[in-house]
Every structure is written in structure tokens, then in C-alpha cells.
């Protein structure tokens, strides 16, 4: 009945798109206020909120398909003669993104209900998740780049909060800070970029920016500058080289968070940003080249690092970086749809992989080292199968989702990029398949190497121990005590064998697995590139490249080669596991240590800054304040010196008086010339 009224007024579902982010916001507020009281039930509220959002998103998408872009804005602020507006907008791209975000968020909510059930701060967790969903959806719905930036920062905040959710773990706290800080570098670039845009265009609105670009209101160097600054934002958020270092560390957060934020949605915001600003990028070939090479290099570097890591989540994190690099590469080579398509498919299968990893971690009691795993295939059926699907999808095996999108990316690299980029893309595809299946085989095949799951001495992370050793001087001797106490999920674990988790955890896996299988078809060539048509309608983003059939075969072949190598090494042992590491130990070490980037940053930026600051502080105390102190002491010292003449001898006083008189005479003589 409501529907009828709306129809009469000519207002569709899209008018109510603003409600999509509001539902999670409401859950956030409810949980913030009443979370402690609700305790166990918080998950239902969160799930309900997201479910509503998801439903509404579906309705909006359905209406948007074949409909027009819908925009609604309010005055937000007056700046001189310019009015800055805020509101929401439903375009093809964000209609798609709404679905991706709400869906992944929903399944992550469901997964978390089980995963986090033993944490006594579960209400906080769900509150944060709600806030994140709100921010991410707000980001997506933004009709202007300022609003995007606002929510962009908010998702950064949520990432900070969720990475640092287990704040009592020093490494989680450090990782949260690192994540926020490094993305902040990119954010400042983005901020400056949009400020420059505003100064030139007089508005933050996408539409007006597009128009300005089209009408050549901006000079070419300015476009390049702005595009690069905006891209800097994307580099930070999407963890591209060289600002990617935060993402692996961000794995300190709970695994559902990694799935939602650091795989599917937030990190993809950078790609989304480039997508939204695409006309601007297209106007600058320099910017496009930079984008393409950054993406390609990131994809390759991240893949190499994923090869050698042993932490299940970190491998996935490097994989995420690598895949994001792929998307950026696609966008940089004019593959607008390819990049965004991969964004979507990646969201599904990477969320799947993370949740699968979460399921595994949960089952083996929060151990993450794949060397301690193995042989889970038989013990965790659903997890294993879905994980396999995810791995196949990311490797790009026909006909899973990853295949379609990756093939398009390869196509755009080949057609619009140069051979070098294509080569990198191919190598990366090979490496992707290899490391994913290295992970898969080590985790799910062979024998379980975890030992007794209830042995507390086993629960150590090497890195953590090292970190704590450095920190112990600061945090005090009770650090070890705290560590024992605070891990919420270890207590009362009766089993000492990993086994499949409850349905609430496996159901999301299944949903995502299905999507990882079918999502690719929406832009499949034989179905007529539906997504491309939808996304490019009415937008000037250039013609989309499509590859020939041989490319598809090549892509699958590369993937199969990677899988085979992994199989040969980790299942059959044809090649020794330490074959490469022993042949080229320095390269292995390089990969393992993240190309020493963290150390370089520490040595080049962090330490000098701190040294300079200490120096400045010293200067502040001694020179800047010292001058003031000196003036003060000079004043009182000169007071003392003047007072010294007051020696109690009246004849001294008389003498001073006489000499004072002489001075006065001299003064009169000198200044006025009395006697002249």
C-alpha cells in the first residue's frame, strides 16, 4: 500500500536509498547505547540492520537497472559564494557497489555472530561493524567527492577501530595505528587533490567536475596533478605500493573484519574512487600510466611476498594487495569495467577466502601459521570445499568469477597497455595460482601438524614474541600476564581436534561460494557484457577492450601451471619445499621481509622525524624558551646590579645624585646645546 502512494508521487525506491546506510547507523547507535545490556542479542540487531540494507539495495538496483541516475542534495555549508552540498546519488556503479557491500557485510555479520560469540566485547564489535557498514555505504552513495572523502575517512576510522579491536594486544594496537597513519598519507593527497579541484571547479560534485574536465576548464598539468593526488588517496586506501605496508599488519584484527574491510570493501574504495573520477584520469595520459604501473608493480610485488609467507591471513592479505593491483592496473589501462568487475568478483571470492580462513583459524583455536595446519580436508568439509572454490576463483579457473574478470584485465593490459604490463599481469596470475594453492595444499591436505590444541605453550606467534621483547621495557613486566588473560576465545575449549564449525559460520561460506562461482557471468561475453552495458551507460569512460579467445586459454593455462607447480611441491613433493629458498636465499629473505620496506620507512621517515623532533624540543627548551628565560634573568640581574649601588652609605647616594646631575647637564648639553 505504501508502494502505491509512492508510485503516485513518482518517487521510487531510489529516493529511499539514503536509508541503506542509515540502517547500520541505527544499529550502531543502538549498540553504542544499549550494547552492554543486550549482550548476546547484539548480533541479531546487526544482522537485521544489514539485511534491511541489503533488501533495499536490491530494490534500488532493480529500479536503477533501466532507470536514471537519481540525485538528492542539501546545502551543507556556504563558502564565500560557493555552496557545498551533501546528499546521495544512485548511479549504476554505486548501485552495484551497494549490493556488493551490503551483501558481504551481511554475510560477515552472520559469520561473526558465531566467530565472536565468546568475546565479551561482542557488542562493541557489532557496533563497529555497523558503523563501518554505514560509512562504506555512505561512501558509495556520495554524490560528490567531498562526501566521499568524509566517509572515506570514516571507514578508515572503522578500520582503525576494528584492527585495534583487541587493543590489549600490543601488535594489534600498533597495527591499527599503522593502518590509520599510512592511509592518512594517501588521504592528505586526496584532500589536497579535491581542494585543488574545488578551487578550480567551484564544486565538489562529480557531475560538475566531469563537465569541467570536458569543457577544458582545467589546464593539462593541473589535471595530471589533481589526478595523481587523488590517486595517492587510492594508493593509501587500496594498499598499493609503496603504501601497502599497513595491510598485512592489519590482519591483527578479527578475521571477519579482514574479510569485510581489508578484502572486500574498504580497500576496494581506492579502486572505486578511481572509477568515480575516471573522466579526470582519462584526461591525463601521464596519470593513467602512473596508475597502470603502480597497479602492475603492486600486483607483482605483493604476489612475490605472498609466496613465502606462512601466516594464513597474511598470505591472503598479500593476495588482496596483489588483486587490488590488478584492478588498478586495469583502470590504468582504460579497462574501466574490467577493474570494477574484478572489484566485484574479488569482493566475493576474497571474502569467501577470508571467512574460510577464519573458519579454519576458529577451528584450530586461533592459530594462523599454515605450517601448523594441514589435513583439514576431511575434518572441515564445507570450509574445505568453499575454500577450494575461492582458490580456484582467484586463480582464474574457468568458469569461476575470477576467470571472467581477470581475463578482461589481461585483455585491457594487452590492448591498451604495453607488453611489459601484460607480462607482469601474466606472471602475477601464475604466481597467484601458485601461492593460493600452496596455501590450500598446506592447510587442507596432508597431515594435521597442529598437535594438541589445548596446549597453551603452543599459542605463540613468533613475531608477537619478538615484538613484545622490544616492548617489554615500556609496557612493563606484566605483559606476559596480560597476554595469558586477555585472549577471549581460548577458554573452555573441550576438543583437541579441529572440526567443522556451526552452520552460522558455514552458511556465509556457502553463499559466497555460490557467488564466487556465478558472479562472473554477469559480464560474460556470451551473455553480452551485461555489466559493461549497465556501468558505461551515459558515461564517457572510453570503449572497453575485450580479449580474443586465445587470451582466455592463456589465462587458464597460466593458472593451471601455477596450481600444478604448487601441487608438485606441496602435495607430491616432486620439488622440495625449500627448493627456491635454498637456491636463492637472499631473494627469499627479501620476499619474506616485505622487501625491507618497513625497515626503510623506519630508517628514512620515522627515525629522522623523531630525531629532528627531539632536537627541536631540545632547541625549544634551550633556545626559544631560553631566550625568554634569559630576558627574565637579565632583567632581574640588571635589577640586582642597579641595586648594588644601594650600599647603605649615604655619601654614595650623594655622589650618585651629583653624578646624576652631571649626566643631566651632559644630556642637556648634548641634546639641546644649552651653551651654544
Amino acid at each position: 500500500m505504501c508502494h502505491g502512494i509512492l508510485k503516485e508521487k513518482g518517487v521510487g525506491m531510489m529516493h529511499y536509498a539514503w536509508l541503506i546506510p542509515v540502517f547500520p547507523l541505527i544499529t550502531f547507535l543502538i549498540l553504542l547505547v544499549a550494547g552492554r545490556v543486550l549482550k548476546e542479542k547484539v548480533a541479531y540487531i546487526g544482522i537485521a540492520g544489514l539485511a534491511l540494507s541489503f533488501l533495499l539495495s536490491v530494490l534500488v538496483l532493480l529500479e536503477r537497472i533501466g532507470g536514471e541516475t537519481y540525485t538528492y542534495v542539501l546545502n551543507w555549508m556556504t563558502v564565500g559564494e560557493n555552496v557545498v552540498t551533501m546528499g546521495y546519488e544512485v548511479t549504476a556503479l554505486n548501485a552495484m557497489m551497494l549490493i556488493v557491500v551490503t551483501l558481504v557485510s551481511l554475510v560477515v555479520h552472520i559469520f561473526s555472530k558465531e566467530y565472536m560469540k565468546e568475546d565479551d566485547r561482542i557488542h562493541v564489535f557489532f557496533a563497529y561493524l555497523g558503523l563501518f557498514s554505514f560509512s562504506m555505504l555512505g561512501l558509495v552513495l556520495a554524490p560528490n567527492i567531498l562526501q566521499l572523502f568524509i566517509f572515506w575517512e570514516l571507514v578508515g576510522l572503522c578500520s582503525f577501530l576494528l584492527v585495534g579491536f583487541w587493543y590489549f594486544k600490543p601488535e594489534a594496537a600498533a597495527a591499527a595505528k599503522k593502518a590509520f597513519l599510512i592511509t592518512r598519507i594517501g588521504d592528505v593527497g586526496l584532500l589536497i587533490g579535491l581542494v585543488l579541484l574545488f578551487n578550480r571547479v567551484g564544486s565538489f560534485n562529480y557531475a560538475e567536475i566531469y563537465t569541467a574536465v570536458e569543457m577544458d576548464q582545467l589546464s593539462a598539468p593541473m589535471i595530471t596533478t589533481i589526478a595523481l593526488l587523488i590517486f595517492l588517496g587510492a594508493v593509501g586506501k587500496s594498499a598499493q605500493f609503496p603504501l601497502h605496508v599497513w595491510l598485512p599488519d592489519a590482519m591483527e584484527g578479527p578475521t571477519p573484519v579482514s574479510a569485510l574491510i581489508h578484502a572486500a570493501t574498504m580497500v576496494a574504495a581506492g579502486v572505486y574512487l578511481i572509477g568515480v573520477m575516471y573522466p579526470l584520469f582519462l584526461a591525463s595520459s601521464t596519470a593513467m600510466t602512473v596508475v597502470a604501473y603502480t597497479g602492475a608493480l603492486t600486483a607483482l610485488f605483493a604476489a612475490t611476498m605472498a609466496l613465502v609467507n606462512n601466516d594464513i591471513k597474511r598470505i591472503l592479505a598479500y593476495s588482496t594487495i596483489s588483486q587490488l593491483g590488478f584492478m588498478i592496473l586495469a583502470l590504468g589501462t582504460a579497462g574501466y569495467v574490467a577493474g570494477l568487475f574484478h572489484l566485484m568478483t574479488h569482493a566475493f571470492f576474497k571474502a569467501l577466502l577470508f571467512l574460510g580462513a577464519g573458519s579454519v583459524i576458529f577451528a584450530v583455536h586461533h592459530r594462523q601459521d599454515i605450517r601448523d595446519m594441514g589435513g583439514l580436508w576431511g575434518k572441515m568439509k564445507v570450509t574445505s570445499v568453499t575454500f577450494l572454490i575461492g582458490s580456484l576463483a582467484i586463480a582464474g579457473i574457468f568458469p569461476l568469477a575470477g576467470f571472467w574478470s581477470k581475463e578482461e584485465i589481461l585483455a585491457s593490459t594487452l590492448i591498451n597497455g604495453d607488453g611489459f604490463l601484460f607480462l607482469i599481469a601474466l606472471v602475477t596470475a601464475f604466481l597467484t595460482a601458485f601461492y593460493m594453492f600452496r596455501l590450500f595444499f598446506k592447510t587442507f591436505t596432508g597431515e594435521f601438524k597442529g598437535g594438541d590444541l589445548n596446549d597453551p605453550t603452543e599459542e605463540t606467534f613468533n613475531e608477537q614474541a619478538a615484538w613484545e621483547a622490544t616492548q617489554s621495557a615500556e609496557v612493563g613486566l606484566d605483559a606476559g600476564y596480560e597476554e595469558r588473560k586477555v585472549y577471549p576465545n581460548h577458554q573452555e575449549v573441550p576438543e583437541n581436534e579441529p572440526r567443522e564449525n556451526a552452520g552460522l559460520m558455514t552458511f556465509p561460506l556457502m553463499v559466497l561460494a555460490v557467488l564466487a562461482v556465478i558472479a562472473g557471468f554477469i559480464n560474460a561475453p556470451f551473455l553480452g557484457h551485461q555489466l559493461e552495458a549497465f556501468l558505461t551507460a551515459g558515461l564517457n569512460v572510453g570503449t572497453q577492450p575485450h580479449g580474443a579467445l586465445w587470451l582466455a586459454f592463456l589465462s587458464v593455462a597460466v593458472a593451471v601451471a601455477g596450481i600444478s607447480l604448487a601441487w608438485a611441491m606441496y602435495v607430491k613433493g616432486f620439488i622440495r619445499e625449500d627448493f627456491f629458498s635454498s637456491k636463492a636465499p637472499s631473494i627469499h629473505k627479501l620476499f619474506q621481509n616485505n622487501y625491507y620496506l618497513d625497515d626503510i620507512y623506519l630508517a628514512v621517515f620515522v627515525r629522522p622525524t623523531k630525531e629532528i623532533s627531539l632536537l627541536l624540543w631540545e632547541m625549544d627548551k634551550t633556545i626559544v624558551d631560553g631566550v625568554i628565560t634569559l630576558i627574565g634573568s637579565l632583567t632581574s640581574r640588571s635589577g640586582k646590579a642597579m641595586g648594588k649601588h644601594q650600599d647603605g652609605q649615604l655619601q654614595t647616594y650623594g655622589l650618585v645624585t651629583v653624578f646624576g646631575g652631571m649626566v643631566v647637564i651632559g644630556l642637556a648639553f648634548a641634546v639641546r646645546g644649552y651653551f651654544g
Partner: protein
Amino acid sequence: MIVLETDWSLMTPEISLAALALLVFTIDFMTGIHGKKPFIGRLAVLSLLVTAVLVILLNPGGGSIGDLFLVDPFARLFKLIILIGVAMVIMISMYYLDRNPEVYQGEYYSIMMFAALGAMLMVSSADLITLFIGLEILSISSYVLAGFKKHHRHSTEAALKYVILGGTASAFILYGMSFLYGLTGSTSLVEIGQAMPVLFQQYPALVGMSFLFMLVGFGFKISIVPFHMWAPDVYQGSPTPVTAFLTVVSKLAGFAIVIRIFTLAFGFEGIHGEWSFILAVMAAITMITGNFIALTQNNVKRLMAYSGIAQAGYLLVPFAVVLGDFSSTVIVFYSVAYLMMTLGAFAVITLVTEDSGMTDISSFAGLYYRSPYMAIAMTVFLVSLGGLPLTAGFIGKVNIFILAAAGDMLWLAIIMILTSVVSFYYYFGFIKQMFMTEPRPNDKELFVPGGLLTVVTVSLAVVLLLGIAPNLLLDIFNQYNWMPSFN
């Protein structure tokens, strides 16, 4: 024959004060040497107040007795300041003498009244001789008062230093005056002033010498640097109420007479320009020296002496900048403010130092706990002396700033402002003692006698009132034609 032809009613206040002073002395004479005689103090205060009323009521139109004795607004205002000041000093003294019974009370009060009489004569006189006699009545009475605690080594030493240096200063003044007389054949300031422009052309060196000698002498009396050296010692050694008397009454009367002489005799026809710069430099040095040395002082009375030197520097500024009704208004306003804030402060200082028996600044420790009212009042006085808002001192000081700036002596205003900030340090050092330090273990709650309470309350009221509504006074002052010669 001036004696017979004159309207002596112009001198009614002086005559009645003289009569009352003699009455006080006679009554004291008849009631024996020893013992406490509070009634004499009260009588003295009453006499002074009666005289003050007479000053207000009589001769609003002004007039003069020959060239000798002027009754103009300037003189009347300063007479009021002197009378009220001495009355308040005597009220402070009543407490002090109560604590120091060895001091002869009747003599003390009558000499103080004679001093007031001399000061009154001085500010009214327009003749070198009358002026000199008035000045000497005040000075000799002051010498005596400074040494009144004759069994006290500090007191006698102070008196000795004062009398020797003061005598020398008198000689300097007289030597300067002798040339003024010699060159004009007259002792009338007005006549000297009329002859001055020509004389200055003729004998620049002699006139300059005469001016400088008088400047040294009077500079000594009002304690401006470099003729200030006596002040800290004498202020420190004298009985505290006498210090108050010297800081306020003696200094303000000195200022009045400096203004009188230098405006009437040296003031016009371009001669002001010749010496205004010297005065400005001295004002600057005075402000700097006073404030800087005060920073290092621990003795309350000595600190107040340096503070008083600095204040003298402030008072000198408008005088150095410009002559006329405006500067007189500013000077008189600041004099009133100075009178009230300094006397109020001295009332509290007398109370505290007499109670603790020492004059170190630490005797103020925790005064707030011992007597909140006194502490708050003292804070207001100090804040006013420092020149912070809502007090008369602020308005007075800012007026001087404005005058200096308007008179093209911005540099002087700048020095004044900066030294004022320096003065915050020691004024707030007091405040720190009172509010932020615990009282010493043996200090009990302070009993505040009625006389001191009255002085403090009146001063407090005036300081605050003038700080908020300075127009009460300024509106009156603006109507005045301060001196006949200003037209």
C-alpha cells in the same frame, strides 16, 4: 601692605588647620607625656577632615593673595589629597602607635599636622619664599617623623640619611632659586615666568643651571632617578605609617610643587620643549630603575619604596609630555589613584608587619587564610599599582599612556608599558605569598582594628569605583581650569 589689604578668607583652611594643630599639641601637652592617647589621634583625624571640608566648601571661585598664595583648582585638589592622605596616615598610625607605646603620641600627631600644613602652604604658593617655607615645614617634619622611633637603630639611621641628603637637596633648590631671583629681581613665580623667555635668550647657561639645580633638588624630594637613592633606605627604616606618609603625601605634594614651578616659571614660550626631553628621559630611567630593582627586593617596605620610585616615573610622564589642563587632569587623577592604592596597601602592610614583627615579604605568607578581607583588599591595591583593569590604577595608567602617545612620545609610553609588565612580577609576588603560600605555623587569624579597616575599606572603594566609573572624577576635572596661567 599686603597684610591689611588681603582677603584672608582664602587661607581659612590653613589657618584652621594651624589652630587645630596647635590645639592638638596643647591638649597633648596637658595630658602628660606618657600613655596611649587615642583621642588625640581621633582629634587629629577630625581636624584634618574638617579642614578638608573647608577646602571643598570655601573659595570655589579661587583667588590669590598677592603673588604669594594661589587658590586655584590645582591647589585645592592637591590640598584635598594631602589632607585625606594625612588623615588616613594618622588612622594607620593610631594602630602603629598602639603597638609602639615608646613613641610620643601627641607630638607625633601634631608634627604630622604641621607637615600637612606645610604641604598645603606649598601647593598653594606662587612665590619662591612661601614655597620654600612650606617645603621646609614639610621636610623638617618629615625628618623628625622618620626618626620618631628614636630607640630603633633603623629609624634613626633613616632620619639621619634623610636629613643630610634632604638638607643638601634643599641647598640645591635654594641655589637654583637664588639665580631665578637674581635674574628677575622677583620671587614671584608669575613674574619669573613672564621674564623667562627673554632671560632664556639672554642667559641660557645660567637659566639652565638654575633649572638643573632645582631639578636635582626637587627630583630628590619626589625621588626620581638618579636622585632617588635615599628613598629605599629611608622608607625601610622609618616607622611604617611614616613610610606611607613619605611615599604618598610628601611625594604628591612634591609633584604638585614641581608642576607649579616648572609650569609657571619654566613652562612657556618654547622653553618647555627645551627641558621636556630631559624630563622624559628621567621618567624613563626612573620607571626602569624602580621596577627593575624592585624585582630583587624581599623587604616589603623597601619594595614599596622602589615601587614608589617607579610610580613617580609614571607621574612624571604626562608632565614631560605636555603642559596644560589635559596633563593636569591625568596627573591629578593618577595622584588620587596613587594615594588610595598606596595608602590602602600600606595599611595592610602596617597591619601585617607589625603583627609578625618583621618586614620580610614572607610575613605575608598565607594572609588569605588569616584575614581574607585584608588579602583581597591588598590584591586589589597591588593589581591597581600594577595597572590591571577594574581598578583606578588601570585607568590612571592608561590615561598616561594615551597622553604620552597623543603627545608624540610613544617611546615613553612603550617603556612605561613594558616596565609595568615587569612590575607584575613583584606585585604578584606579594599575591603569591598571600594566596598561594601556607601561613607560618604560629600565625593566627589577624584582628583588624577599626581605623585600619576604615582606611582599607575607603581605599578599596575608591580604587574600585574609579576603576569602573572614572568619569565620576574626570567629569569634575574636565570642568576645571587648573591654573590661571594655562589660558
